[in-house]
């Protein structure tokens, strides 16, 4: 009986390994955005690629939102969450794989990089003042 219980632990161990083997490949980095943005038109994707967007900001950086490029219903959703033109957005936290944490006004949001790519931004106010001063 004792021996059986001991060998039983090995079975548990095997199962653990199996569970991890199963979840392991999921952690591989691949292109998430390809299936995320299925409804964005070609033109929209082009704009998203060329414009300065929220996903390009690094941790701690701030910028003004100048527009949202997404299908109507998605744009409305993003706006209702506080991502509106003219607001200031700050990146609080971002990692290579996971979503970003963005602060808009008094609200903290978490959003995926591919959704952040829909938000067009302009350089932050401080930088703009510098430009104005130089002129």
């Amino acid at each position: 009986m004792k021996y059986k219980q001991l060998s039983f632990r090995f079975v548990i161990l095997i199962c653990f390994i199996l569970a991890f083997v199963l979840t392991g490949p999921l952690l591989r980095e691949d292109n998430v955005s390809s299936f995320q943005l299925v409804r964005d038109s070609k033109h929209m994707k082009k704009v998203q690629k060329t414009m300065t967007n929220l996903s390009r900001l690094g941790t701690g950086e701030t910028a003004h939102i100048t527009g949202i490029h997404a299908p109507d219903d998605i744009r409305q959703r993003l706006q209702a969450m506080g991502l509106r033109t003219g607001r200031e957005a700050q990146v609080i936290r971002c990692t290579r794989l996971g979503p970003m944490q963005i602060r808009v006004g008094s609200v903290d949001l978490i959003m995926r990089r591919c959704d952040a790519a829909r938000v067009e931004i302009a350089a932050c106010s401080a930088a703009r003042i510098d430009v104005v001063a130089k002129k």
Partner: protein
Amino acid sequence: MKRIAIVGMPNTGKSTFFNRLTGSSSRVGNWPGVTVELLSAHTILGSEAVEVVDLPGIYDLHGFSDDEQVVRSFLENNAVDQVVMILNAAQLDHQLPLALQIHKLGMKPVLLANMIDEAEQLGIRINAQSLSKSLDCPVILMSARNGTGLKEVRETLIDRLQSVHPVKPQELKAYLHADDELVAHAESLVSEHVSSPSRLVRRMTERIDRVLLHPLLGLPLFFLAMFLVFQAVYTLGAPLQDAVAYLLELFRGWALDPLASVLPATLYGFLVDGLYDGIGTVASFVPVIILFFFLMAVVEDSGYLARAAYLTDALMARLGLDGRGFVMLLMGFGCNVPALMGTRVMRSRSLRLLSMLVIPFSLCSARLQVFIFITTALFTPQQAPVILFFMYMASFAAAFLTALLFGKRLKSDEPFVLELPPYRMPVLFQVLMRGWHEISHFLKRASTFIITGVVLVWWLTHYPEGSTPGGAGTYASMVGDWLKPVLDPIGISSMMSVVLLIGFVAKEIVIGAIVAMTGLQGAALNGYLSTQMDGIQAISFMLFILLYTPCLSTLATQLSESRSWKFTTVSLAWSLSLAWVVSFGFYQGALLLGY
């Protein structure tokens, strides 16, 4: 009767306010969209009875999610005398546009700036009087958590209900166009009447997040936290469970046995050995379930669930799900039914369907109860928690595998944007209410499903007359023999297969069924179980229980939420076949390895 509707964005403390106002219990979660069913309660305001309805949290009156449609159709179809809108006082800039939308519909809301204590700590000052004048509706600062301002709220509501007439908004869409205008209006209102520091600093939340959302430490800490919760349920729950079992045994010895002994032997066997012991064994799990829900409520109310969504989204995105799906999976650890309903916050149908396909694999409290029972009976106290944890891992693995396989068919384009609320101390009152809510739900199910199930199993295992109870010749063993070709290869004995059949209705019945079948209890029952199966067979049995559909209510919910027979059938067929294949693989694999 006059009717008050409570609206507001998610995470503003609507449910807490609702509980405060009506004194009844409803679920509160620091998570967008937990209150998905319409909760209503009756209360006395002044001299008249009033019906209070708690509507789901929404961001936008003309949004596209199911919740937003629920609120809209409620307001379109029900006469409401007074709309009460709860706002988070610390986020007025974010929340006033919704208030203006409601105001524009001619509903004259009473605005309650909730969490005023939190806002004051952040250095935000709101001039309620002038804001109220500009908006032409009452604005009251309050805190539903500690009760500040509630007296004023009651007085205002009594006052308003006497003077205001019900509004029936007919053409909502027509009003709801000038969105940008409303935002500009909201911003000017905020800058005029609210003063806040140029940058909000939530020191505590940021400090905690630095550790809990750490890019490398975050996930391990999350799994550690979950492991600790389950460990706590097991170590704290076991003694409580013994205590209840002891009390029930005491009652049987002192009162029930002497009283019932006058009855004929068959009736005595049915009432005491079948019904009382069956229900008693189920009842002894009540403390464990209460404990589990207390701990889940603490995790939920603290704001950690949204962090869990953040941490797991990278993984879930690859499965075609998102972080919210993971949180619903976690909610499913309590009960699959509310978790299935919680998917209403998802707007994209395919994402919803995929989440609903995955949720039934999360190990709910009813299954937990079965596993605790079996692990306690067959394994050492050191092994038991490990096996329990393994079951949770298997539950995740099944969910991930399902998402991976079906994700390609059910693609979604839903944006993943979630609010990250600050950490909050869970309120004891809410946690207790929540535990009570869940346990009363459990007992309600128990009173119908479990009693019927226990009686049925007792009958199956004791008849036809003259057969040995629980042995050969009974109806149960006939059913068992019939199922033998299917269940033999996965190591489940014919008696246990009857239990599985009954467990299809609800897993709460399983233990009661085993007790009723054998007529044994306590140590004797554990001894009997170890003759019925060894460790490997027990795990195979548990894997099967884990994976083949959770219960009839889950199936019914899947059907009502998806409104598709096809989807429900696919889900049932998939879970049944997965259960069999996994159990088969495990059992035969273990046999091959020589255990």
